[in-house]
């Protein structure tokens, strides 16, 4: 005997989920760059990584979900508003990287966005952005485990690989352990840890995290003032000649990302 069922405001009725799933299917690989604390050079790594991979002939997208201190798009020099097309917004391309960031919408204005609003914005950006076919989407995130991280873990489960960036400082290393533990307990795939601003000495604490949690130490990127200067100037041709970029490119090759 048939009966009538009524679904009202049912959680499975958010049409954005099906649209986002379709979009993510067009993307071969998603790499989410995270860190336990700020100031470790996560955005610099995310941006340079996307630029280097694009230079090596990959089709790359860079999604900056750091709503509060968005910097990736300005590092790459992407400033135009996304163009609206039938199936969504076309992200502007800069240096062969498709870029999407909240800063494209608000410019230099502060983003006064609370927790729930941040989740809605990220969900909406994933829904409306027409990335097309990509070899890799790199996601630059705000530091720590907040609403953004939770949102990404929820939406990209099974699809994303996380890379955790740290520096040798004790504070950074301790937050790195927490974020790796969180990701693993949430069932996320952690590709590895990158030690940025390395002094060259072996950091036993990072090696211990790597061993104890079974997460690869992908490599060490040296502290490089010239790279920071190149970023400040927005001079990517200067950037690719730095030790920072060379080390990152070697790391990408060893990890078979290029």
């Amino acid at each position, binding site marked *: 005997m048939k009966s009538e069922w009524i679904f009202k405001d049912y959680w499975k*009725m958010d049409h954005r989920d099906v649209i986002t799933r379709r979009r993510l299917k067009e993307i071969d690989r998603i790499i989410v760059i995270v860190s336990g604390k700020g100031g470790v050079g996560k955005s610099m790594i995310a941006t340079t990584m996307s630029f280097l991979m694009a230079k090596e002939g990959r089709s790359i997208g860079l999604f900056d979900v750091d709503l509060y201190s968005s910097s990736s798009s300005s590092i790459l020099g992407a400033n135009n508003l996304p163009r609206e097309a039938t199936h969504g917004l076309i992200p502007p391309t800069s240096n062969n990287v498709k870029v999407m960031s909240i800063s494209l*919408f608000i410019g230099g204005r502060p983003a006064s966005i609370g927790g729930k*609003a941040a989740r809605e914005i990220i969900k909406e950006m994933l829904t409306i952005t027409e990335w097309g076919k990509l070899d890799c989407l790199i996601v630059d995130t705000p530091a720590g485990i907040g609403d953004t991280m939770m949102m990404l873990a929820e939406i990209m489960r099974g699809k994303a690989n996380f890379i955790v960036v740290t520096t040798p400082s004790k504070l950074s290393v301790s937050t790195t352990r927490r974020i790796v533990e969180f990701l693993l307990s949430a069932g996320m795939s952690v590709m590895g840890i990158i030690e940025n601003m390395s002094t060259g000495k072996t950091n036993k604490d990072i090696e211990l995290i790597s061993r104890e949690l079974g997460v690869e130490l992908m490599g060490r990127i040296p502290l490089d003032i010239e790279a920071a200067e190149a970023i400040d100037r927005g001079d990517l041709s200067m950037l690719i000649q730095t030790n920072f970029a060379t080390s990152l490119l070697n790391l990408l090759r060893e990890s078979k990302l290029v």
Partner: protein
Amino acid sequence: MHEMMLVEGIISTILELSHEKKGRVSYFKVSVGEISQFNVELIRYLLIEMVKGTELEDAHIEVDVEKAVVKCLSCGSKLNFQELVDPLSINEREAVHFLPELISSFCRCPSCRMNDFEIEQGRSVRIVEVRMDI
């Protein structure tokens, strides 16, 4: 405007739900939030046209407008969305159309001058109700 993408998403979502529940959809209702600034008549037209040839083509479709209710979280005032966005430039309104929560970046509460808003209602397009025979 990207109404077509939106309507495709709505139809796919309802079809997925009906397949999961193994039911036949007899009715569904979509609300178009005022803040989204989508053209309601266009959404209605696209829904009617795009369900043709699908399992939803015999379903009764209702589309209405959901009034915008924006609340200032600092002073509790309920604000008129249109009055908030009227002073904005075309680009700023477009930004709010795509990402409604950006209203906090462009506007201030006329009562307390803070910019901490919550969109209580009328945010975007959403599937409000689906009825199916199971």
